[in-house]
């Protein structure tokens, strides 16, 4: 499964509680869309750390890294490239 598919499935299952792919666009803001809240962001961070073997620093917890599927994919790819 690609990074995008993995992330999409996780967010759909755990925050939208659905497997309907149409429920989430890749550039939907999780925050503006009311999809996640503050505990949700921590859950996403823990999930991507484990699923992609990366370490998210506290100062990287920013909307430009975490607030949409698109931002997450870019962020994870960048982190993996640095650690590779």
């Amino acid at each position, binding site marked *: 499964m690609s990074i995008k598919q993995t992330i999409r499935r996780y967010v759909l299952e755990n*925050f*939208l*509680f659905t497997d309907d792919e149409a429920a989430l666009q890749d550039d939907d803001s999780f*925050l503006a869309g009311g999809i996640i809240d*503050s505990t949700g962001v921590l859950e996403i961070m823990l999930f991507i750390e484990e699923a992609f073997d990366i370490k998210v620093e*506290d100062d990287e*917890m*920013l*909307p430009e890294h975490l607030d949409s599927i698109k931002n997450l994919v870019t962020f994870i790819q960048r982190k993996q490239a640095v650690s590779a």
Partner: protein
Amino acid sequence: MSTVPRLLQETLLATVSRSPERTALVAGDARLSYREVADCACRLAQALRVRGVQRGERVVVFMDNGWQCAVSIFGVLLAGGVFVIVNTQTKHDKLAFILRDAGARVLLSESHLARVFGPVVEQLPTLQVLCTAAKAEVLPANGENLDAALADQPTTPPPQFGIPLDLAALLYTSGTTGEPKGVMHTQQSLLFVLDSINEYLGFSEDDRLFSALPLNFGYGLFQWFSAVRAGATLVLERSFVYPAQVFKRMCDEAVTSFASVPTVYAMMLAQDAKQPLRFPSVRLLTNAAAALPVEFIPGLRRIFPNAGLCKMYGQTECIRSAYLEPTLAEVKPESVGRAIPGTELLLLDENRRPVVSGAVGTLYVRGPHVMRGYWNQPEKTAEVLVPGLLPGEFLLKSGDLFRQDAEGDFYFVARSDEIIKSRGEKVSPAEVENAIYSLPTVREAVVTGVPDPLLGEAVCAFVTPREGESLTVQQIKRVCSEHLENYMVPKHVLLVSELPRTENGKLSRKLILERYAALITELA
């Protein structure tokens, strides 16, 4: 305008005339001076009057926690209207309930929220919608562009007719029966409690208050009112979702006051353990909405080395009841202190007689800050507003049991209703149960709070499926997320075959908690 403000909007006009160029509000990329806030609020007031908003009519503000929301509150008040703020996490059926229940004349919102309010306003043909929108094409069908509506209005207030007895706000709060109740506050009750709060917290125009609390919540709303009254600056964040961003903002703006709830303090303590957090500019730290665990205090002293800590207690029905003097934070760490200035607290038994010294009683609140009642709900009002000491006076019966020490300071003992406090938010078990029952495969559902290290209490649902039906945890969480604000969605869902009952055959939270005690311990 009188020399002493008698109405909330007069506090804004007084501050503008004193210090028009002082920064009132910092939110996202926006920085507004008091003059800009007042100009914008006056334009909105004029636009609302043009659209027929009369004295006492309700205007629902369904906006993100940003400058538009903060300014709209004063715009509605300057129009003579009653503001009703709805959290943007609210889903469409609850928004529809509030719009109908309040009899709203106008809805103020933002275009990205149209997917929530769009289907609702179609059913309410008399409701006018004013909506911010970057582009005309994203406006909902029956919505008017708010920015365009303001553009040609004057920046002077429309003629003012209000008096302190007028209704100023309906603050919707969760009730035990599931439907939210509109707490009616007058100009007088809100302005009184505002002055009392600013007196014991000692805000001045040099303060920069920081808040990420929602403006629909009394504690969040009063950060804004306190700032305006004092001529101080409010640094308003949408939420605490991105802590690094919030912490940077706090440092950049050198904030002097930080208002939050135990869940946020818990998160800050966890961060501090990994990498030290320091906010030396903060002189005042406040806590409300849920009790601050005693063991948090030493860590908070490290994070805020120059701040006094003020623990407070209140409820929407009177905004604030008690506060503990910062000097007593370590002396009486479990106390909520005493009544706020100008009010009193009474501990009464079931016959409404004072309890003997040191005994546990129900807390009653006496003062000009007590609400007028629940909107359109005289029976529910009568349950909590009981005849007071003088004819025509009412005491507010809180849902909580307290005791008092020899020096007069109060200690929380227990709640006397079943409301769950999660992340400082009130969650009505009945409201969550109703959402779960909308699944036809559910036989029975009981929702209760279970201890949680971060949330205080976590929402936990015990559900039994109908015989022969399949039911999954995910289905239950989904139906909850479709109907309820995020903080109400159960963190834990336990599917069980049978729920324990009392001898009378009633479902009992107490028996459920006993039977599943071991399981609940594992969840935390």
